[in-house]
Each structure stands twice: as C-alpha cells, then as structure tokens.
C-alpha cells in the first residue's frame, strides 16, 4: 500500500491492518499447503486445493452472515453507514462465493471426473451467489438513496434467511435419490495450513469489507445526509407591483 503522504491514522486504520495480516497469513498458509504438508492419502496432491477451498467457504459464510447483520441494522436504524456496510460485505461475499465455485470445480474435475456435481454445498453456494448478485444488481438499479437502503436490505435479509432451507432441500434432493459421496474428512496433520489460510481469508475479508465500506460510506452518507435548508425567501408584498413586473 504505497499511500503518498497520507496521515498516519489512515496508514494504520483497522482495515489496512487486517488486510496485511490476512495477506501474510494467507501466503504462509498457502505455502505450507502447497509445499510443506504431505500429499493426501486418497486424493494425492489434488487434496492441496482444499487448503484454499475450505477456508474460502468458511470465510464466505461469515461474510454473508455479516451482510445479513448489516442489512438488519440498516433496516432497523435507517443509517447510511450500515447500508454501505451491507453493500461492502455483499460484494466481498459475492467475490468469495465466485472463487469458491471456481475452486470447487477445479477440485471436482480430477477427483470426481466432472467439473460440476450437484453436491449440496456446491449447489447451495451457486444459488446463494445468484441471490446476492441479485441484491447487488437491485442496489445498482435504484437511484433514490432511502429506497435503496430499504429495498436492498430487505432483499439481503430474504436471501440470507433462505440459505438453510436451500441447503436442506438440495441435500434431500440428492440423498433421497442416492447416497452422495462426501469428500474425505480432514485429518489432524493437515490442520495447520488449513487454519492459517482460514484466518487469512477471514482477516482479508474484513480488510476488503473495510476498504469498500470506507469508499461506499462516503458516497452513501453524502447522499443520505440532509443538506442545509434553503435560505428563507422574502415574503411577497402586494400592492407595489408595476405592470407585469415581479415584486
């Protein structure tokens, strides 16, 4: 972050600190996952994808939860800062979610022989991605700030509330049909890189949300803030007008 001559408090703001911590943890975690941890017994080297995939999934869930909380706060308080936080976390959630799907496909191809499988988690995350993309699109379409706050937050709350039911429906859809093979559970020796990368993704997420929040909040709060009342116009006096002239 080469910020030219910026104030010290801006350099050390919580989002930047979190961003740097997240990037460092992620680098260390991924290095360990790629080069230090042994190859997985069943999946071989391909199992290394889990060190990037699983942390993304955890972080993604947390980011969406944050988005839901911010949406609730925005609805409850009507404050622009929560509206901005909602949008920022929805953006980061969509980013993580998209990455999650890409990683999932790349893991599924060598493991299962297909890029896509209707695994409940994969399917659910695809549906949730579309839901939150919808929320972001909705926010872009609405120009009036108060309306955007209300409608955007309502859409986010509805989308998030549906996640568990989406998951269960997809799971039953598969399991009532045929048993679905779950990926191997994670054994102890792989936990360190997983944990490092997970905290890395979470801190990075907090940092990214903070970064976007800062920018969005400036804009949203400016739009929502009350400008000064226009100056009082003088009261019109009658009886002094010329022919057709204004007073």
């Amino acid at each position, binding site marked *: 972050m080469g910020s030219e001559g910026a104030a010290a408090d801006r350099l050390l703001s919580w989002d930047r600190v979190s961003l740097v911590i997240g990037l460092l943890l992620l680098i260390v975690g*991924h290095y360990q996952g*790629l080069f230090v941890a042994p190859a997985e017994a069943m999946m071989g080297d391909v199992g290394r994808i889990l060190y990037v995939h699983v942390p993304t999934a955890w972080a993604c869930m947390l980011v969406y939860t944050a988005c839901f909380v911010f949406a609730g706060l925005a609805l409850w308080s009507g404050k622009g800062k929560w509206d901005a936080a909602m949008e920022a976390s929805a953006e980061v959630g969509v980013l993580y979610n998209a990455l999650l799907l890409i990683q999932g496909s*790349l893991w599924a191809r060598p493991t299962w*022989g297909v890029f896509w499988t209707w695994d409940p988690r994969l399917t659910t995350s695809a549906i949730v991605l579309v839901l939150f993309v919808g929320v972001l699109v909705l926010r872009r379409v609405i120009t009036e700030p108060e309306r955007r706050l209300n409608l955007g937050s309502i859409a986010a709350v509805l989308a998030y509330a549906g996640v568990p039911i989406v998951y269960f429906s997809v799971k039953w859809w598969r399991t009532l049909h045929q048993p679905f093979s779950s990926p191997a559970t994670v054994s102890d020796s792989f936990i360190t890189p997983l944990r490092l990368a997970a905290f890395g993704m979470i801190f990075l997420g907090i940092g990214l949300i903070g*970064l976007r929040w800062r920018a969005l909040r400036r804009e949203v709060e400016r739009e929502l803030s009350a400008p000064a009342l226009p100056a009082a116009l003088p009261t019109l006096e009658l009886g002094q007008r010329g022919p057709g002239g204004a007073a």
Partner: protein
Amino acid sequence: MNEVVEPVATGVITGGWPYIIGAYGLTWAGLLAFLTRAVLLGRARPPESP
C-alpha cells in the same frame, strides 16, 4: 435414470497439478483484482469533497 454423473473414487489420484495451480492462481488473481479495484475506487474523490 439420473443425469448426474456419479463421482467415481479412483483410488489414489496422481498428478493434477494444473488444477492445483489453477485453483490457487485464480483465487489470488480474484483477490488481488478485487483489492486493486477497491483501492482505486477508494482513492477516487467525490467531486464535492474539499
């Protein structure tokens, strides 16, 4: 009839490094792209700010 290809367990999978590199590479590319965009948008000053 089910249209879904059933995942096959083929014993120990060997190789697959292109997929691993792809997964890590695309993840980092995505994260850094978003970070760059966020920084750029954060730098852009609103017109009315002093």
